[in-house]
Every structure is written in structure tokens, then in C-alpha cells.
């Protein structure tokens, strides 16, 4: 499908970069004139995906997080967040609400639930020892301006 515009960037898996990832994605998406709510939804979903890479993918290690954002036809936003970390052995279990492998860090186990709720579509592919890729899509509403 035709890509109207795209940015790709990568960052080391430092927690201080979580806000930078949100800000970069927001500033790119603003050209599509999302509502305040849509922008908040996308920022939150990106924050969850990036945090998962840092907390779970690269736990106790450091690696690279790659983020791709595309503006697609029909006001669809495509976001891919990829790590080369430890991978998820059981994706179905990982996506269950409240499931977490890091309770000692007070992880609520709601990351995937938030991504699913705030975006229209979510897909997760993972290979143990190779990494995880999260792809999310959201169709922006057509509004006044």
C-alpha cells in the first residue's frame, strides 16, 4: 500500500528515551491533524511498546530500539516498534491482561491491553533470542479543521 510519509529512527534502550520516543512520534503525526484524544492514545501506545523493549526485551542489557511511523491513505497511522532482545516465548500469555514477568518492578501487566485498547489493530511477532516486533495501526477521524 502507498506510504504518504514515513520516519524511521532508532535509540538505545535507555528509560530516559521513553519520553523522547513519544515526542518524536507525536511531532511527526501532528501533520495528520489528529484530535487531542487520538494523539494521547498514540503517545500512550508508543510509550507502552518502547517500555516493553526496555523492561522485557533488553532486561539488564542494552540494545537498539527501532521505530517506524507511517502516514497511510485514509488517515491511517502505522507504527512499528522493534527490538533485538530476548523475545517472548508465549505471546498469547504475554498479552493477557495483568500478566507480567517483572512484578518486582511494579509492572502492572497492562502494556499490551493499553496498546490494544488505544489503537485499532495490534500485532506482535517474536522469536526467542532474536527479538520482538510490535505493529500498531490507528485510523484517525475526519473532523472539522
Amino acid at each position, binding site marked *: 500500500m502507498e506510504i504518504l510519509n514515513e520516519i524511521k529512527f532508532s535509540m538505545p534502550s535507555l*528509560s530516559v528515551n521513553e519520553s523522547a520516543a513519544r515526542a518524536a512520534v507525536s511531532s511527526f503525526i501532528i501533520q495528520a491533524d489528529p484530535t487531542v484524544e487520538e494523539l494521547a492514545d498514540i503517545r*500512550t501506545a508508543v510509550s*507502552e511498546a518502547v*517500555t516493553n523493549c526496555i523492561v522485557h526485551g533488553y532486561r539488564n542489557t542494552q540494545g537498539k530500539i527501532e521505530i517506524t511511523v507511517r502516514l497511510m491513505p485514509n488517515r491511517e497511522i502505522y507504527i512499528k516498534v522493534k527490538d533485538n532482545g530476548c523475545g517472548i516465548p508465549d505471546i498469547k500469555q504475554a498479552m493477557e491482561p495483568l500478566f507480567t514477568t517483572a512484578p518486582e518492578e*511494579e509492572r*502492572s501487566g*497492562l502494556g499490551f491491553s*493499553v496498546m490494544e485498547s488505544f489503537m485499532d489493530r495490534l500485532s506482535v511477532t517474536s522469536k526467542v533470542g532474536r527479538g520482538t516486533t510490535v505493529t500498531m495501526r490507528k485510523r484517525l477521524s475526519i473532523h472539522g479543521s
Partner: protein
Amino acid sequence: MKIKIKSENGTAIVVLSGEIDHHTAKNLRSELDKFVITMQPEVLAIDFSNITFMDSSGIGLIIGRYKLLKECGGQLEIHSPQPYIRRVLKLSGIERIVKII
């Protein structure tokens, strides 16, 4: 992230300003715990009116403080979250255990 603590009629009010994510939650967690353990408040109200972003890391933070306060015989309240923050709170179902005003 800024933290301001004040006391009103036996309730300790913590006013947070900024964004709550996994990165900022670490520092918040230790600051709040230090306060709860030292002051043992009956009610700890966290004022969310100046919080401009929160993801599920904030839910973990709230649940952790709820548990600590419960152990100390206190209660946790969340005050004035913005509509967008309310959506994240609602998704978690946290309003079943923590009063949100």
C-alpha cells in the same frame, strides 16, 4: 517531574507535575515511599491535576503505593486526573480499590 507535598486537615496531599512513565516512576516511587514510611499519613491524596501524561507504569506506581499505605494502616486517594488519565485508570479497573475524586 515535580513533587510538592502539603498537609490539609489530616490528609497529606502530594501534588505531582509532569509525565508518569517507567522512567519517572522510579524516582516517584522512592520519594513517595520515603514520605509514607516517615509520616505514616492516614490518607495520602495524590493530586493528578498537573499530570500531562501517564501510561501503565503509573498504574503500577499507584498499586504499589496502595499496598504500602494499606500495610501502614492508611488510605490512598487520587485527585483530579485529567479526562485522558481517567481513561488509563478506568482501563486498569483501579477505581475498585482506590478512591478517584
